[in-house]
């Protein structure tokens, strides 16, 4: 199981774009939590992924307009 923390500006559709990067790969969400964090928003995703997908996902998220930071939780 892999945990990701993604900070984003809560503009229209940004959370959905973050999620479609996962769903387009046919992956299931184990857990999704999205909360305001000061002036940012943060979504925490728990996913079953293999290493190649992790790199691809992080690249897709980073290329999304209004995504501010992408981290993987230990």
């Amino acid at each position: 199981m892999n945990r990701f923390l993604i900070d984003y500006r809560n503009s229209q559709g940004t959370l959905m774009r973050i999620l479609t990067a996962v769903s387009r790969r046919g992956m299931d969400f184990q857990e999704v939590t999205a909360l305001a964090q000061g002036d940012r928003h943060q979504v925490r995703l728990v996913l079953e992924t293999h290493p190649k997908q992790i790199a691809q996902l992080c690249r897709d998220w980073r290329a999304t307009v209004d995504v501010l930071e992408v981290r993987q939780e230990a």
Partner: protein
Amino acid sequence: MENANTAAHPARTGAATVWACLRAEGVDTVFGYPGGAVIPLYDALEGSGIRHILTRHEQGAAFAAEGYARSTGRCGVAIATSGPGATNLLTGIADAKMDSVPLVCITGQVRTSLIGTDAFQEIDIFGATLPMAKWGRLVRNIQELPDVLRQAFHIAQSGRPGPVLIDIPVDVLKASAELPVPGRYQPPATAHDIGAPAFPAEQLSALLASAKKPVVLVGAGVKLAGAQLELRRLLDRLDLPACSTVHGLGCISSEAPYYLGMCGMHGTRTANTVLHETDLLLVLGARLDDRVTGDPTRFAPDARIVHFEIDPSQLERVRAGELAVLGSLADTIPQFAAALPRLQRPDCRAWRDAVCAAAREELGSDGGGTALPAIRFLDELFAMMPAEGVVVADVGQHQMWAAQRYRANNPRGFITSGGLGAMGFALPAALGVQLARPEACVVCVSGDGGFQMNIQELATIKRFNLPVKILIVDNKFLGMVRQWQQLFYDRNYAETDLSDNPDFVAIGAAYGIQSERLAVDATTVTGLPARTGSVLRHFLDATTPQLLVFECPPEANVFPMVPSGAALSEMLLEEA
């Protein structure tokens, strides 16, 4: 653009605001199709200073806007009504995303109070485009309209360009407000604002020093950055073998002694062999998709990859451990050139000379085989085209023949749907190119299948008397699929037969377009009819729309071919 003007402003409707914002962005032409939700927009069109081109299908509008954008580097604009109008734009949006084309799509939406009720012609187009548009907005009120439009143009054109969608409810178009002229958009910082990292001269130098078979691969990023002249100067000094993706065609001079031609599924034998054998691959503005790499796990197996790229999401797609040079090629190519005197150079002269000699021989040959009549015909056509002409190719065998034979040196001179591979692209895209570049000789090369996918745009071409030269390579098959069926499905030509095609010459004539047919002639040396030259001369010189049907053998194939899923080294060179 000036900063926001704070003085009092006349009241404007949302519709008038849209046109004013488009003008402020320098838009002169838009492509669209009206319907209930955008009537207010069309009502305010007159006097806007913007030329609206009515296509005959919204997909045609999106592709035409793409043609406009791809041939100029400027933003294309397409307009459609809510519901079916909006969904008809989707293929164009997906195409623009795949090929990095700056495109602003404006759709009407049902009025705000009806949104979410499954109202007549209500579709969540904002939601539908989430996975394929670079960005989008459903506009909630007239106040946010100017900023949304300004932001849309900025995002479509910045970084790696792409399509954006603005969905505007009809009541927002009808509302009225005193709004300032929008000021310059100031983008907020984001994760992909990468700054200007230092050029990795030392690492590159070490890699070059130890390379025995270094090669350069050029993609669309070069032309998107407008860096083709800097590229050519750099390549002349580097003097290493260099090949091109389909979207990079025209960036490298086809006369350059180090040019290996196109690489990938239907690339040259030399380019693909060199890519398989290389130990150092310098990728300049290409995302290394699977049509270029073949099986990505077996692509350039011995190579270190140095990847010059603007979009971090495209790095390390093939394998980890690339040396990344992030940024616009407009910056990084000059940095490379400036560093060159300090870089060690590979010792590979004998190998390079042999490879380049093989490429010269291959590019100079017509390849023989079943495709010969089509190849000879395209060679004659391209040789007669003016240097600044534009070829717009559809999708299929004719597209790959055209890409293989294209020798012009203009990076925006070969336009095609590469990443999405959308049949029906070429005819509307060509009309968009012709409107953007009225003086240019624009040749649309289509198959008999793809031509029928947006055939209705003949009416648009005729209305504006656009001198587009439309060539249909008519093999009476969905040729590229038939080729796969022949090679990999035991000649089971299931549902690819088009032998009952309509009479395209009669169709052209019905639209008022001068139309002509040529067929292969077995009695001549070349296999082309004796009058080919004079027909082509007339075709290319005409100042009115022209349609030319070239009937070629039905079972001609495109070679070389790397079968889907195979490595580049496993390319097929001719019929089994």
